[in-house]
């Protein structure tokens, strides 16, 4: 004969059978009322406040607003020192730069699957599409025929000279130095960028309707103009930018915890190089803990201890104690 052991009553897990009365409740009516209220609120708020409509930053707007920054960025794409060129997977094979936790690096694990060769894709390739400029064709031929060390010398000379570049009568002027054909190439690339032709050449043409802006976004992000725009609008990581919207519109306030970690040590100090992956994993752990609240002793008792439910159902509990 088996003996059944009776479980002790646990107020966090067990409930007493309901002995009170029942009444009907129309949940379909509640859903319809909530939907109508939300619809009126959304339409009303849209009429009163509108919505953010900042124009997207393109290579054309960037190069017209700051030719010097564009030229300074273009040479880093050509000599392979830009942020994109040094990013590593998924864009290129640069060893030991991907974010990691211990030995685990998802980017390195997945490898290069959006190949980007900044010199070819951002400078030489677009310039080769210009066929009506003999000077440019000569410069490209000279550059492509030169040895890697010669190319590096020209690039280095231009990178130094362009630091003192100025815009004179709306034209980029770079101090003369021994930068060979690179001066003509970057000057032509700047003109191409200002006309909007570089934006067009950057769009992935794999599909009939090109919607892949990966390369142009990487290009724009390599300059200082874009990050300056973001900082001015309080959108940078160190400004809790994840929570913010442009202008005076409310933003994604629910991302406060995600954004919070980016503001404090060690995420701003020792862990800074791997902050993204560390914050992501931390938030995953916290999310799992939130899902598991009903199973965590103590934490699951907080609603019972706080007695907020008695405030909500105060009519029911009136006079019961």
């Amino acid at each position, binding site marked *: 004969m088996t003996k059944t052991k009776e479980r002790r009553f646990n107020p966090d897990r067990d409930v007493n059978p309901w002995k009170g*009365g*029942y*009444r009907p409740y129309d949940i379909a009516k509640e859903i319809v009322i909530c939907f109508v209220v939300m619809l009126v609120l959304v339409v009303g708020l*849209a*009429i*009163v*406040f*509108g*919505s*953010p*409509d*900042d124009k997207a930053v393109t290579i054309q707007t960037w190069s017209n607003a700051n030719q010097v920054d564009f030229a300074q960025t273009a040479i880093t794409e050509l000599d392979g020192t830009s942020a994109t060129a040094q990013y590593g997977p998924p864009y290129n094979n640069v060893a030991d730069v991907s974010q990691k936790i211990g030995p685990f690096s998802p980017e390195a694990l997945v490898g290069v699957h959006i190949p980007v060769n900044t010199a070819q894709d951002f400078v030489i390739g677009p310039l080769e599409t210009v066929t009506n400029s003999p000077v440019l064709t000569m410069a490209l031929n000279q550059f492509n025929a030169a040895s890697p060390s010669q190319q590096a010398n020209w690039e280095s000379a231009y990178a130094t000279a362009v630091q003192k570049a100025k815009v004179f009568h709306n034209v980029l002027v770079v101090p003369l130095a021994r930068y060979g054909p690179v001066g003509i190439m970057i000057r032509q690339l700047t003109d191409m960028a200002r006309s909007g032709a570089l934006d067009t050449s950057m769009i992935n043409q794999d599909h009939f309707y090109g919607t892949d802006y990966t390369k142009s976004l990487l290009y724009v992000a390599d300059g200082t103009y874009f990050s300056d725009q973001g900082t001015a*609008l*309080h959108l940078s990581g160190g*400004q*809790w930018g994840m*929570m*913010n*919207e*442009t*202008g*005076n*519109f*409310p*933003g994604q*306030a629910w991302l406060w915890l995600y954004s919070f970690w980016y*503001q*404090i040590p060690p995420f701003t100090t020792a862990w800074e190089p791997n902050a993204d992956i560390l914050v992501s994993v931390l938030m995953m752990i916290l999310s799992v803990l939130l899902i598991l609240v009903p199973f965590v002793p103590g934490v699951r008792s907080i609603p019972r201890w706080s007695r*907020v439910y008695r*405030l*909500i159902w105060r*009519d029911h509990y009136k006079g019961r104690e």
Partner: protein
Amino acid sequence: MIGRSILGALVNLTKPGMYVHWGFIQISVANLIVIGLMALTFILAIAIPFHRKGGRS
């Protein structure tokens, strides 16, 4: 121009954002207002009694 003024918002929020700085905390006034409204809605949801028709069954 007329169409633009008809379609445009009544209140222009496309101006430089206003932010509150407190130590390492930075929050936009717009977000503060929304968070305040959410807290107010929560308090009202608890404080306002349930609507009853015909009393308790």
